């Protein structure tokens, strides 16, 4: 079976005045059809840049090497018109801030219909009526009225529902949701997670859920990739990751998450130090300076991701499963 998305030794670097820094460092990953994969990491870990590279949305000073294949086709080799046939139809993305990702001066109905007119070649009239039905499927109340409204007239949660509707219009194979609930209040976040769960069941597409919050990913993802300093450090079945984190960074991250249940703590666990600056540790394990298990080997040899399909870890001294 062909993977829906297959990333191989992807490197994303950004050049600037004093040289070049790597935001994504030789990352490989696969996403199977109708699989939900969570990508978790702190700011700057490179989790968004992988998918910006796949979508061809990186800024001009970015340098990309490696391979990103979508349903067998190399995306990095495509020119803009060819890429435009894929992105927005079969490969779609939902962003964190639904206000800035909708066009402020176009009505919701126009923005939704435009996608289908451009990709499917249907008439504006048909596209509009389909857009209304799609809004209904993502539980936007009064969908017909919304079609004639502008983005600023909708609440944040409602705008995110519109974004989700837009991502589903052309029956995508893969939807990438980048921090889709981070800008939303907690009750609305719960509604959007429920909606993503429901549309995944209904449309059967693969879903990538990028988040800094393990708890948000926990409820949806089949598999979770943990990123640190431009590297995938762990790739495990979700339940396995929470039960037996193998990479010391994953274990620390889980410990750091305060909870609304369980005992109250006198002090919250913290992770000392900072992630390395990009380009700082080329041949060492990037987590070694903050790791309690680090030995000499970790400072001279970068560990590669290895293990069974259920649980892969990039660590010379992983925690036992």
């Amino acid at each position, binding site marked *: 079976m062909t993977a829906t998305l297959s990333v191989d030794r992807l490197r994303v670097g950004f050049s600037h005045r004093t040289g070049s820094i790597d935001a994504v460092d030789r990352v490989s990953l696969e996403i199977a059809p109708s699989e939900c994969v969570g990508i978790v990491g*702190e*700011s700057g870990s490179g989790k968004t840049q992988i998918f910006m590279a796949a979508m061809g949305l990186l800024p001009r000073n970015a340098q990309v090497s490696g391979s990103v294949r979508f349903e067998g086709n190399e995306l990095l080799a495509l020119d803009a018109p060819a890429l435009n046939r894929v992105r927005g139809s079969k490969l779609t993305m939902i962003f964190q801030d639904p206000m800035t990702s909708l066009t402020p001066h176009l009505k919701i109905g126009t923005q939704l219909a435009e996608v289908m007119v451009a990709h499917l070649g249907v008439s504006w009239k048909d596209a509009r009526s389909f857009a209304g039905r799609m809004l209904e499927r993502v539980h936007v109340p009064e969908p017909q009225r919304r079609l004639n409204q502008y983005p600023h007239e909708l*609440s944040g*949660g*409602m705008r995110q529902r519109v974004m989700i509707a837009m991502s589903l219009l052309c029956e995508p194979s893969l939807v990438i949701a980048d921090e889709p609930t981070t800008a939303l*209040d*907690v*009750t*609305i*976040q*719960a*509604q959007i*997670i*429920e909606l993503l*769960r429901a549309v995944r069941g209904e449309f059967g597409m693969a879903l990538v859920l990028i988040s*800094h*919050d*393990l*708890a*948000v990913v*926990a*409820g949806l993802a089949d598999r979770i990739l943990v990123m640190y300093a431009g590297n995938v450090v762990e790739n495990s079945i*979700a*339940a*396995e990751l*929470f*039960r037996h*984190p193998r990479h010391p960074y994953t274990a*620390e*991250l*889980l*410990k*750091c*998450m*305060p*909870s*609304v*249940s*369980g*005992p*109250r*703590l*006198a*002090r*919250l*666990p*913290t*992770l000392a130090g*900072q992630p390395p600056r990009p380009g700082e540790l080329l041949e060492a394990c990037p987590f070694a300076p903050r790791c309690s298990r680090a030995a000499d080997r970790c400072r001279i040899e970068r560990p590669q991701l290895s293990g069974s399909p259920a649980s892969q870890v990039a660590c010379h001294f992983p925690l036992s499963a």
Partner: protein
Amino acid sequence: MNNTLLRVRDLRVDFGAHAVVRGVNFDLSAGETVGLVGESGSGKSTLARAILRLLQAAQGSVEFLGLDLLKCPPAALRAQRRGLQIVFQDPLASLDPRMTVGETIAEPLKVFEPGLSAGARRQKVGDMLQRVGLSSEMSGRYPHEFSGGQCQRIGIARAMILSPKLLICDEIVSSLDVSIQGQIVNLLLDLQDAGMAVLFISHNLAVVRHLCHRVLVMYLGKLVEIAPCDALFASPVHPYTRALLAAVPHMPRAAVAAAPAASGEPAASGEVDAPGDVDAPGEVAALDLTASGCAFRARCLYALPVCETRDPPLLEVAPGHWAACHRSHETLNPLSWEPV
């Protein structure tokens, strides 16, 4: 704790025709950490700014150490503010990019202790930097040279340099990564141990739970529940509070049990819990001021006819535990309530 530091009474703030804070009453004792939670638009930050008189309240009083800040003349207000400091959400935006960190932290001292020599001021700034976990050598650097977590420490150092009685923290961990967030919370726990009172505004209930003695829950400009922290999380009464708690995504059991070493619970199930059921359908809507009744009723699964007509007052349901809900007297275990 009878040692009242801050007494807020009937505080109301209007933005044009909209009432954003609608008659808020609460006390805060010396050394107490009080959490203020609610969704965006509930009026949390507006309440904080009205307390500091950074914006004008329409009515009510804010007594700090017995003096009404809303009525006192500017000179007296400035003197009072020495004891009442705020740390803002965006750590970088709230620091002047053209001032060194040392100058930023020293500025309150120049205002309130003009007699202090430059050497003594430098000493104080250096000590404060160390207290917030930075080093005194950093005082010559500029804000852009620091990470978000470090900038937040600098904001806290600036607020702490005058040894205020009360620190207002407005979403100070919201923009930080989880590993950094814990460091800032622990710093506040240290300040708490040193006897400082904190009003901690946050939408992050897990952080509030670990930090606060008491919690205020705000919905559309009103406090709907006030409770000791443990009671709020163990037995929330107001349907809105319960919806908020239910909406927090839960970590799978194994991870939660593994985190605190003291829990002693075996990491057993590893079942991936879904985020809680959505107990508050719909969204916060702008409030129609002409409408009567409870502001939460449109989203409430338990609303009765009386909720349409009468705004429920805050009533004490258990010692120190107050809730503004017509059904709060029915039982302390709202799980037994019948949805209507």
